[in-house]
Every structure is written in structure tokens, then in C-alpha cells.
């Protein structure tokens, strides 16, 4: 593609994205076919876990989409939300309750708590993806369902942490994966419905005498793949969260059955 054509395409696609966003509150979903995978943590004896067929948004939820939700649900506005549901960094970079500037309309919404993300999805007739669903989709690169053993793929994921302020980027600019889903890596972290299950209700792990927090040696005791640093980082990140936390590099997307 020539540079000019590229620019035209970019303009075209961003116009499409904006008009699409304005028209439809819900993001396009694709079907993810059932399958099995071995998660880094949380499966008994490192056995594969079955993931049932489900649907997932192809993009994370954007600022423009989230502001529409806020207009319909004023109790989730920054000035009104109760502390139990969101800490004080909730939407803290927004200019006001319903003005996300200086952030862009088509950038992923971040600084949202788990409660707000969950509510948003419910209002769309959807739900947050489970951690297994999210991880299952995140294994895929452009052509394969499971690219975790590919060195390049892992490097791509790991290099994300060296790129500052990626939460300012628009959605849909990273690669489209095997399922047709964008931005699983390279944009922002994402909430899952059971983000804290590994650490707070993993009683079988506690029975084995390992600690609930991911530090020092205990982090590696029950891991299924010691070289999957990208997954270690995601699990450690989730383990550091509480449901009312909100941070700049954490957004979400929705799923449904």
C-alpha cells in the first residue's frame, strides 16, 4: 500500500470507527469456539481446562462508549459513585463527570473499577469474560489458536511494558488474532469476572502450603510454565487488584454466552 493509500485507509477506518461507535453502543462480537488449554495457575495437577463456546467483543470498551453508559447510569459518574464500588482514581484523568477529554473517544476506557466494568457489560446484555476465557483467547496470534511457544509472540507481549502510555492509543490498532479479536496484547490490561479467584479462593493451593500472594518462590511452585513471563505478569497484576481499584493501564471488554 502506498503511503497515501495508507493515510486514506487510516482516515477511512478511523471515521468508520467513530461513526460505528456513535451508531452502536455495543461492540461487534465474534464467536470463540470451545477448546482446552492449560492455564499458568489454577488447574488441578496442571490438567487442561475446558472453555465452552462463547462470544467476545472484538475491541475493549472505549471512552465514547463508556460515557454513553454513564449518561444512562448517573450513579456510576465519578462524583456520585460510592467508595465501595470505586476508589478515588476512578476516571480521575477525565475533565469532568461526562467529559473524557483530554482522552480520545476511541481510546480504551481505563481507570474503571471492576464493579463499573461489570455493570457496563450487564447494561449491554453481556458480562465480563472469565479469566479462562480471556486467557484462552489471548493465546492466539494472527494465525494460530495457541502461539504461546512462539518466541516472537512472547517478545511482542513483553515489549508492551516498555512502551509508555499505550492507554492513549485508539482501539483496534494492534494485530487481529485468530478469532478476529484485537488488542488482547499491546494496549491495556483488562478486567475479568473472576480476576481474584486464584488468590482469594484457591483453597486447594493453600492446602498444598503455597502462599496466596505471588512473591518469591511461591510464585513458581504451582505454575505450569516457568518460561511464560507474559502470563506471570498478568497473573501478578490481577493478584494485586481489588474490585474497587482503578488504574491507568487497566480497561475491559465484554463477553456473552
Amino acid at each position: 500500500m502506498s503511503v497515501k493509500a495508507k493515510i486514506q485507509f487510516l482516515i477511512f477506518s478511523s471515521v468508520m470507527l467513530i461513526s460505528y461507535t456513535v451508531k452502536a453502543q455495543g461492540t461487534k462480537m465474534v464467536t470463540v469456539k470451545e477448546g482446552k488449554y492449560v492455564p499458568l495457575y489454577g488447574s488441578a495437577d496442571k490438567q487442561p481446562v475446558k472453555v465452552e463456546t462463547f462470544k467476545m467483543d472484538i475491541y475493549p470498551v472505549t471512552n465514547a462508549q463508556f460515557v454513553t453508559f454513564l449518561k444512562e447510569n448517573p450513579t456510576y459518574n465519578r462524583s456520585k459513585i460510592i467508595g465501595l464500588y470505586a476508589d478515588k482514581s476512578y476516571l480521575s484523568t477525565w475533565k469532568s463527570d461526562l467529559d473524557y477529554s483530554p482522552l480520545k473517544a476511541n481510546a480504551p476506557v481505563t481507570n474503571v473499577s471492576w464493579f463499573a466494568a461489570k455493570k457496563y457489560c450487564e447494561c449491554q446484555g453481556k458480562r465480563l469474560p472469565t479469566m479462562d476465557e480471556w486467557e484462552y483467547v489471548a493465546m492466539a496470534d494472527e494465525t494460530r489458536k495457541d502461539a504461546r511457544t512462539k518466541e516472537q509472540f512472547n517478545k511482542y507481549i513483553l515489549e508492551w511494558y516498555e512502551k509508555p502510555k499505550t492507554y492513549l492509543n485508539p482501539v483496534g490498532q494492534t494485530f487481529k488474532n485468530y478469532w478476529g479479536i484485537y488488542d488482547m496484547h499491546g494496549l491495556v490490561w483488562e478486567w475479568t469476572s473472576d480476576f481474584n479467584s486464584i488468590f482469594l479462593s484457591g483453597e486447594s493451593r493453600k492446602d498444598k502450603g503455597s502462599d496466596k500472594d505471588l512473591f518469591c518462590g511461591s510464585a513458581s511452585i504451582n505454575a505450569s510454565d516457568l518460561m511464560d513471563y507474559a502470563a506471570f505478569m498478568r497473573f501478578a497484576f490481577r493478584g494485586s487488584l481489588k474490585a474497587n481499584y482503578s488504574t491507568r493501564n487497566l480497561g475491559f471488554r465484554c463477553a456473552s454466552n
Partner: protein
Amino acid sequence: MKKKAKFIGGSMVALLLSAGLFSCSSESKDTKQILSDNVISGEMIAELTAPPFVPKPVGSRKAKKLIVHMEITEEEGTMVDGTTYMYWTFGGSVPGSFIRTRVGDEVEFHIKNHPDSKLPHNIDLHAVTGPGGGAESSLVAPGQEKVFNFKTLNPGLYVYHCATAPVGMHIANGMYGLILVEPEGGLPKVDREYYVMQGDFYTKGAYGEAGLQPFDQDKAVKEQPDYVVFNGSVGALNGDKALTAKVGETVRLFVGNGGPNLVSSFHVIGEIFDKVHIEGGSMVNENVQTTMIPAGGAAMVDFKVDVPGTFILVDHSIFRAFHKGALGMLKVTGEENLQIYSHTTKEGVYTPEGGSKKKAEAPKVALTGQAKIDAGKRIYDATCFACHQANGEGIPNAFPPLAKSDWLNSDVNRALKAVIHGLSGEITVNGKKYVNVMPAQNLTDDEVANVMTFIYNSWGNKKQDVTPDMVRKVR
């Protein structure tokens, strides 16, 4: 450096010496006592310093509630000229802020993770008695703060580091530092104190490869670092940033090793450590040349500087110093003391007994042409190669290049002087500054002529022929 003869003999003297190191030493106090003496007199905010500096000594202050505010950041910084790295830091520096406490302090530790951080972090302080050294209580998401308390029970110099999975990666990215727990009454007074910490780094590109270099997991697992440095980057203690002292002063270095992998053979060229707190603990060794510092360990070394000059800090696992950056400098100014060190007083040809005098005088007729260049190359390979490298490329920030060198080509006599008499101080070669020491080379006039002719006829230099006569004039 030695002060006086210390072998005065008598166990009483030895006993007094070691007791004096920790005045009113808390070695004599057990945990129970420390807790029952729990006299916390007031509170204070801990002074934190970036390396190579340390906070003021505790002196005679009583145990207090000491409040530490530590901020975690993820920021791009310079590893070596032209190469950057995404460092993860405690307090904005690598190594992280120095924390200075005394035995019995009740530390209230506030750990804050900057909102722009991508990752959660925590802290494991080796000075903490408790699960995870605090890591259990301190996993902190970006944009959050956590607080935990601990009591300092054991005096010594301790490492702290991040212990969030993947642990090795968090340490490899610079998340380590030192916390000092002084005994009651403080450490013995010295004139200067500095903070030096070694670390090994693993990058996608080789040493010196330009641009932002990502962390290389495979090299880290194989324990093959591209950089081994003091205080987070190549040259962090060189040139303008060198440590300084004056002749006659006592210097204490708080030396740590963050690892993640390598054990350091810490040495200061031209100094002998009068005292070393082995592994940062209470045992003191005296008159030490090189002290071993394990990854995740530390040592306190004290010495008096008696003569002026530049003293080079190295990891004496020596290829790390010359190829990976493990070099620092201590510049000492003041009066010469020729009794302690005379510099070169005499030089001449050495002829072994029953000797091969003939051999030494062999090239009576000075070589010319290719034979001269070949002879020069042999000398180069034996004498110059280690620092200036196979193709005269030198080592960035440490040893200037000889290839296409403007410094060489603009003044032959100056170059000859450097070879014959040595060179120290700042020079600029091909636009880059170098501050290092080149020793005088013990070569004959013919040898100098040969090696310089080789250098001038190699790697794009100006093809100057150097004669023994030219060398003689400069000598």
C-alpha cells in the same frame, strides 16, 4: 590502605578493637531485650538518598518510629551512550533510595506504585524479620499505596528488592537497593560514605547496541549478561560522577550486589580495605584485597586514602570490568607521599642472568616496511589489545578507540608520550570524552616505534612511520 601495623598482639587488644566497631554493640542484645527496651522516642520521616550518596549517620539518636515513603516508577534511562533501558526503580534510581535506620527503630513503610506503572510491585527487605521480608504485605497495584511496619532487630547492611512474579525480571530491571541498620550509637565515624551497588543486565542487543533495548529473558535464564555495572549504568561513577576524597581521609563504601545472577569480586585497584564487614554483618575482616559480594548481599568496606590518584572500582571477575561496564572511580586529591608510593623511579632493559642479551638487542637494525608492521602487531596483541580491542575499536566510555582516531592522527608526539609516560585525565577522541588511566608501557624505543607504526598503518589511520629516534626524543 594500611594505617599502622595492626599486629600488636594480645587478645585483649583484638577484643577491644572488635568491640569498638559496634560501640555498645547490639550483638550483645537479644531480640527480647530489643523488644522490652521498646523505647520509641518520637517519630521522624526517613531521609532517602539516590546513589552514590547516603543519608546522615544515626549518631547517638534513640530508636524512633521511622516513616519511609518509597515510590516505585517505571522509566526509560541511559544504560550507555546511545542505549536506553526501561528501568523499574525504587525511588527513581538504580539502585533504589538508600534507607538508613538504627537497631530498634520501628519502621512504617509506605510503598507507592506510580499510576503510570504497567505492573504491580512489592518489596522484600532483607532487614525484615517476617514472611517474605515484607513482600507478603506490600504487593501494590499501579496507582495504589500500601503500608506495613517492621522493627529492625539486627544491625547490618541489607539488600531490598522487588519480589513480584516473575521475580528475576523485576530484579533484572533494577528493582534493588540497600537498607542500613546501624548499631546503637552508630557505626564508627569516617570522613566520607558512599553507596555503590552492582547489577547485571540482559538486553536483546549486545553491549552498546543503540536504541531502547528490551529485557532478554533467555540471556537472563542462561546467566549471560550484556552489562555488569555499578549504580545502574555504564560510567555511573566515572568522570564528573566519580567518587571523591582527599588524602588522609577515611572512606566507607556501602557496597551491595543486586544481581540478579552474578556474584561480585569487589576490588578497588590500588587500595587495600582496612576493614570489611563481611557480607554486611558484624564480623570484621582486616586488610582485604577483594571481597566477595553475593547476589542479594552486601559488604561495608572502610579504608584510609594515603596517596592521590584515581582508584578504580572493579568487579575483579575482570572481563566484566573491561567488556561489560563494571568500572567505577574514586578520585583522591592531595599531597603525594613518595614513601608510600614513589611512581616509576628508574627504567632500563632487563637482561636475565646468563642471559639472552643478544636476543634483547636483536633488532639492532631497526625494522622497516611490512616486517616492522608485523612486529608491531605482535606487540599490540600482547600489550594493547586487552583495552583497545582487536580492531582498535576500544570500549565505549572506558577505553578510547585507536581506529580512525583524531586524537592519534593530529599529534604523534602526544601519542608517544601517552605510551611512554602513561596518560590520565579527560581526553576527547572522535567527539567523545574519556576519563581513565592508561599506565606507562614498559617497551623499548624500538618496540614503541614498531607498535605505533602498526597502529598508524591500521584501521584507517594516517599511515605515519614512527622511528626509534622519534620515540627517544619524547622519552
